[in-house]
């Protein structure tokens, strides 16, 4: 899949991280390395301090709701070596998710973790200021969760199909001169002017 131009291979990170901190790595793909959620601080601190990876900056922290669990994604950046490391932590508890905070390692996590808590409802332990960021304190629920609008398990929110896909393709072909309006079937209902009876 499309990795960034300077993104490191997850297998390589997993090999080095796993050797230094046994039991931390749970899975690795070409793009990212997955770490045990309770040891995420150790893993981030090791990556930050390691000479080989030098992940000095937390450039992005966000979360993805996968219906049964959450994925928290950390994009780490080495400014000196110009390379990117992607770390993920799986939060298995979908009802009351929580994860150790990255703030003791990266101060840049302060507002990003508050945003994730506000919109996804993942609590970060050891965070100095775990409050909502955008929404008011009494707001019901966490809107970026997939079940926020009451969509049942097994269903997905989001478009399965572009609503006017056929209509739009037809208009485009007409504009390109391939079709004329005579070729098009009459639409049921007619125009507003004739539909008033």
């Amino acid at each position, binding site marked *: 899949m499309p990795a960034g131009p300077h993104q490191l291979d997850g297998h390589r990170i997993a090999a080095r991280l796993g050797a230094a901190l046994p039991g931390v790595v749970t899975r690795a793909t070409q793009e990212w390395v997955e770490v045990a959620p309770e040891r995420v601080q150790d893993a981030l601190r090791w990556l930050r301090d390691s000479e080989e990876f030098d992940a*000095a900056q937390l450039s992005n922290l966000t979360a993805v709701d996968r219906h049964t669990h959450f994925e928290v994604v950390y994009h780490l950046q080495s400014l000196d070596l110009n390379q990117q490391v992607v770390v993920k932590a799986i939060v298995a508890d979908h009802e009351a998710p929580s994860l150790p905070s990255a703030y003791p390692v990266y101060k*840049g*996590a302060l507002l*990003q973790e508050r945003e994730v808590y506000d*919109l996804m409802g993942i609590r970060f332990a050891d965070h100095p200021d775990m409050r909502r960021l955008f929404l008011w304190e009494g707001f019901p629920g966490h809107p970026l969760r997939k079940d926020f609008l009451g969509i049942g398990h097994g269903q997905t929110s989001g*478009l*399965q199909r572009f609503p006017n896909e056929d209509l739009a393709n037809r208009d485009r072909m007409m504009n390109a001169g391939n079709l004329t309006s005579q070729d098009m079937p009459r639409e049921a209902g007619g125009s507003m002017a004739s539909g008033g009876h």
Partner: protein
Amino acid sequence: MTTVNEPYVLNIGPQHPSTHGVFRLRVVMDGEVIRDLDMIVGYLHRSMEKLAEERTYTQNIPFTDRADYLAAMSNNLGVCLAVERLAGVEVPERASYLRVIFAELQRIASHAMANGTLVSDAGAWQTPLLYMFREREKILDLFEMTCGARLTTNYMRIGGVAFDPPPEFWPALQELLDEMPARIDEYASLVVDSEIFLARTRNVGVISAADAINGSLVGPALRGSGVPWDLRKAEPYCVYDRMNFEVPVGRHGDVYDRFMVRLEETRQSVEIIKQAVAQIPDGPHKTDIPLALRPPPGEVYGRVEGPRGELGFYVVSDGTPAPYRFHIRAPSLINLSLLREMAVGVSLPDAVVALGSLDIVVGDIDR
């Protein structure tokens, strides 16, 4: 009788000139010195990331105009590059050059706004701001000529740009490029030699390089602290690898350095646009993509160097026409990570200038 110093709680905003938008600071004061600071944001939250999950990739481009409304072109570019990498869409060469030209014009316009309001925060009421707005106005006219809009441009498309600029665009651009260097000197002469401006900005709001990196600062806020990090050099996108330009950095990490970094970047942007105009080839400005673009399942973190720094789009696709997750890494929000540390212990007017030098856009913070 004894005197007790009770802390005084001061609300700045949500409607206040120095907060640059609907942004509220709750400050605990001891006399003129700040003892604690809390920022309250969200007045402009429009839940773009949730809305994006119900719309196609192309339908999401106009939302990004309204995120950072002072840098719509950069936002358009960021989301298009991310989705193009996810879906494997090729971009014609002419479109890449047009993207560079418009992104750099946007940077000049945005830095004019940032520096103008910063000078305004420092007490030079409206004069320098209006001088800088004069050229910003001409840039917005160029945008209007090309895509019909001045701020919410919605100009970039997945696979290219929406329109080729009209014939009258090129002479107008050339005229602007010819006069820009003298205009930038004029801004500098208005402000930089002013003793009051130096007193208000030198050694104020100092951020060390180590703090800036650890606090996830990006853009001029990071470069002002002396870290030469620019994504146009580090991960060249579009045709930036063919452009010859420098990355200005500061030395002390104070408000003055951040101001000067923006001013120098404006000069570099003019140079980049000149080179792009000289090199731009003829050809199509857009590749045709399916109306319901379905990128293969996967994820991408695409980023560009916007006027405020690293502007990232983390997009997860599940193979349907709408993204499964659409996260905007907003530089304005994350640059505020160190605001409390910067403000505690300094006087209120200095904190206002320090906030101004971080160049926040509330639409980008709240999304």
